[in-house]
């Protein structure tokens, strides 16, 4: 289906009058939206992409008004997803008016977007936000004059305190109502003697040929074509390919002419004239007095320390460490509550239900599975609160600024550091919030490369495996092993990113040009709303999928059961030995060896039962491949279980080692491992490397799917990471077992 002619199927048009909120990133859009709509909002994603779609209901003089929050954008081109979504939604929803919220402190640049909205033709009203800061910077703006020149309402606001917002809403609504039902009235800017005639000619030929795309005015479409807008071109070519081929030819001629005579492109000339229009608009309206510009001063002074050549990186390390400490020490307590709650639930079911398939499914499948997901919730809540602080305060942009030089080498972006750290860059993180944190990257290729490599990090769920094995094979050196594995995670993640960026996610580095907003105090409300939204989203989506998957994993390890005669034979053997034990003398050598035989019989049986299940068969079937890395079938099952959640590796290994008695803890698992002849230094090293690097757990995969908007990337990550892990584990095993 084409981009602009969106079918409205299944999307009941709202009865309420609709306004859209547009603005640059960091202009205070979220703050205004929250202030206007309060808790009456709805968050979703635009289909197929992670740009957020937010809607809410505001009230004005007793009337309810629907407000759509458009993604933050600097312009209305086809280059970024945010910008494409913004202009598409305006065309599809046809709001009464667009509220263009501007950061008054950077008025010229912010008007660049507002002017483009007006050129599109939709009624626009302007909110001069952050007026408190603008005044502190020594700016004064002649509001009535600006409003007269633009012919639209202009209202001063301070979103943080709510000042002016109601008035802004009221004026916008009244202004929009004046044009209700009428075609859009686009603003016409002159683009100079070279382009104006071309623009006129293009508009006329589009009109004559009947090429168009309502409600966008033809002149706007012509302008976009001149700006080399690939999306509009392909959209218009859809209906009339011959006409558009002709038009394209004409535009190419114009481009060539401009290049030859002015050494410039149409795109650049258009931007220059647009900024020129803005400066003439502001002449006499805006005055800046440098002598009282304290606001910037404060921020600059902070930057002198926070991005200082030596102090900057040190402070950044400190902050990152602190974040990790806060999350995993503060998060531990509520995490335990969740665990205790699910343990309690499990117990209740355990005592109140008769043994059987249903009970086993409810306890091992549903409760353990859902409990596993719920455990992450406190962590995610905390992580997102801190990310909100980093983002709203402006520090996040500084982190990207300081680290960009290093990350760029690997085809990443300075801002990739946050997802890496949270995902386990400091041992103990968790890939799920890590992957979600990649949202803050505005560059699509770098974002994808980041979120696909985050799962290589040493997340907290892998730690129990590392602890158990290093305790047995590297006693006294556990910390070193842990450190080595964490470091390996970083190295592999960054190298893999490099590989991805020159193969599957090829493409030039996205331009870095980024705003460094002044430092600001984050607000509690903003933080809570932000964190709450993200957590809820995680719960909803991951919760439903993980439930289904944990039932599947449970079934794979429980079915098919052994045939009747084998069960009977085992029961008979057990009864027989038990009989002999009862008959023997307590404390005698005879009795001890009988008890041992009983233990062995039970062990053999549960091993056989496990081997017989789907999981067991897969584990056995994988042996021919995994033997090169030194893993036996029990290890394979554990690794398969680990696909659900990495914590499961240890528990599955326990089951696989005939720990039929669930009371036994990992200390005895350690003994089992020590006793098993299959485990030696080479195979343990290979196993640990494999656990560190192989396929992300299911929750991570679901999150990858969610964040990339495509199951393809989740599948890719599964295969890619497993191949990388297998390659590295096999190499390590082969080398180590030879020397």
């Amino acid at each position, binding site marked *: 289906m084409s981009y602009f002619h969106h079918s409205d199927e299944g999307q009941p048009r709202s009865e309420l009058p609709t306004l859209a909120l547009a603005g640059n990133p960091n202009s205070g859009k979220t703050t205004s939206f929250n202030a206007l709509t309060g808790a009456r909002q709805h968050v979703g994603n635009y289909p197929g992409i992670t740009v957020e779609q937010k809607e809410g209901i505001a009230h004005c003089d007793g009337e309810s008004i629907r407000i759509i929050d458009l993604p933050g954008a*600097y312009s209305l081109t086809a280059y970024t997803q945010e910008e494409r979504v913004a202009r598409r939604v305006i065309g599809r929803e046809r709001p009464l008016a667009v509220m263009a919220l501007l950061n008054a402190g950077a008025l010229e640049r912010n008007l*660049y977007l507002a002017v483009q909205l007006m050129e599109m033709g939709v009624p626009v009203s302007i909110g001069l936000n952050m007026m408190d800061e603008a005044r502190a910077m020594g700016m004064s703006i002649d509001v009535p004059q600006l409003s007269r020149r633009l012919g639209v309402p202009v209202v001063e606001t301070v979103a943080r305190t709510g000042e002016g917002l109601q008035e802004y809403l009221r004026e916008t609504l009244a202004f929009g109502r004046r044009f209700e039902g009428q075609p859009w009235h686009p603003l016409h800017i002159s683009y100079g003697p070279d382009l104006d005639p071309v623009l006129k000619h293009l508009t006329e030929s589009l009109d004559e040929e009947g090429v168009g795309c309502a409600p966008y005015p033809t002149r706007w479409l012509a302008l976009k074509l001149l700006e080399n807008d690939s999306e509009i071109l392909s959209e218009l070519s859809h209906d009339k390919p011959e006409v558009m081929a002709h038009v394209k030819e004409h535009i190419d001629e114009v481009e060539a002419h401009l290049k030859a005579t002015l050494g410039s492109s149409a795109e650049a000339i258009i931007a*220059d004239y647009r*900024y020129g229009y803005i400066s003439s608009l502001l002449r006499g309206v805006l005055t800046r007095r440098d002598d009282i510009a304290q606001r910037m001063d404060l*921020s600059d002074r902070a930057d002198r320390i926070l991005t200082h050549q030596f102090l900057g990186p040190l402070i950044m390390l400190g902050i990152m460490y602190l974040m990790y400490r806060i999350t995993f020490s503060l998060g531990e307590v509520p995490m335990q509550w969740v665990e205790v709650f699910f343990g309690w639930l499990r117990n209740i079911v355990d005592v109140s239900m008769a043994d059987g398939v249903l009970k086993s499914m409810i306890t091992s499948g549903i409760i353990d599975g859902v409990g596993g997901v719920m455990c992450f919730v406190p962590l995610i809540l905390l992580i997102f609160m801190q990310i909100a602080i980093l983002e709203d305060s402006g520090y996040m942009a500084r982190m990207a*600024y*300081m680290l960009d030089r290093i990350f760029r080498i690997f085809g990443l972006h300075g801002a990739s550091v946050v997802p890496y750290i949270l995902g386990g860059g400091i041992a103990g993180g968790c890939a799920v919030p890590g992957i979600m944190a990649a949202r803050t990257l505005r560059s699509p290729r770098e974002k994808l490369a980041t979120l696909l490599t985050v799962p290589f990090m040493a997340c907290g769920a892998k730690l129990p495996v590392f602890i158990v094995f290093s305790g047995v094979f590297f006693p006294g050196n556990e910390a070193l092993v842990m450190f080595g594995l964490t470091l390996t995670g970083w190295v592999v993640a960054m190298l893999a990113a490099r590989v991805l960026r020159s193969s599957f996610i090829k493409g030039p580095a996205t331009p870095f*040009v980024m*705003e460094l907003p002044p430092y600001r105090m984050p607000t509690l409300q903003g933080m809570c709303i932000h964190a709450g939204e993200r957590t809820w989203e995680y719960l909803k989506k991951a919760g439903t999928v993980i439930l289904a998957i944990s039932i599947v994993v449970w079934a794979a390890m429980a079915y098919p059961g052994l045939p009747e005669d084998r069960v009977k034979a085992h029961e008979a053997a057990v009864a027989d030995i038990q009989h002999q034990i009862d008959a023997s003398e307590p404390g005698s050598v005879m009795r001890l060896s009988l008890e041992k035989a009983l233990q062995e019989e039970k062990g053999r049986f549960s091993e056989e039962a496990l081997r017989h299940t789907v999981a067991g068969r897969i584990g056995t079937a994988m042996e021919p491949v995994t033997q090169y890395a030194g893993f036996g079938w029990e290890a394979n099952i554990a690794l398969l279980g680990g696909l659900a959640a990495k914590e499961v590796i240890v528990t599955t290994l326990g089951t696989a080692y005939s720990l039929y008695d669930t009371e036994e803890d990992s200390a005895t698992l350690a003994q089992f491992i020590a006793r098993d002849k299959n485990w030696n230094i080479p195979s343990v090293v290979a196993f640990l490397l494999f656990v560190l690097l192989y396929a992300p757990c299911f929750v991570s995969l679901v999150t990858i799917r969610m964040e990339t908007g495509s199951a393809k990337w989740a599948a890719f990550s599964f295969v890619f990471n497993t191949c990388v892990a297998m390659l590295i584990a096999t190499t390590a095993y082969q080398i180590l077992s030879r020397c």
Partner: protein
Amino acid sequence: MSIPLRSLPVGRKARIASVRADGELGRRIRDMGLVTGAEVEVIGRAPLRDPVALRLPGFTLSLRNNEADYILVEPVD
């Protein structure tokens, strides 16, 4: 006399003489307000000397050195 933005020392003010980039980079640069005639000042460099932090009237931008190479400036006093 125009010089590349990369070689503008920290603390020195300048006016943009021309922006040579086209395509996505050119677009991003212009969208962020870096157009002919704009007043800029390099206010700092990242710890590894790249990217640079630029002050424009009312806001601060950062861009990579190799991106700054596309921008020619004329120092003003």
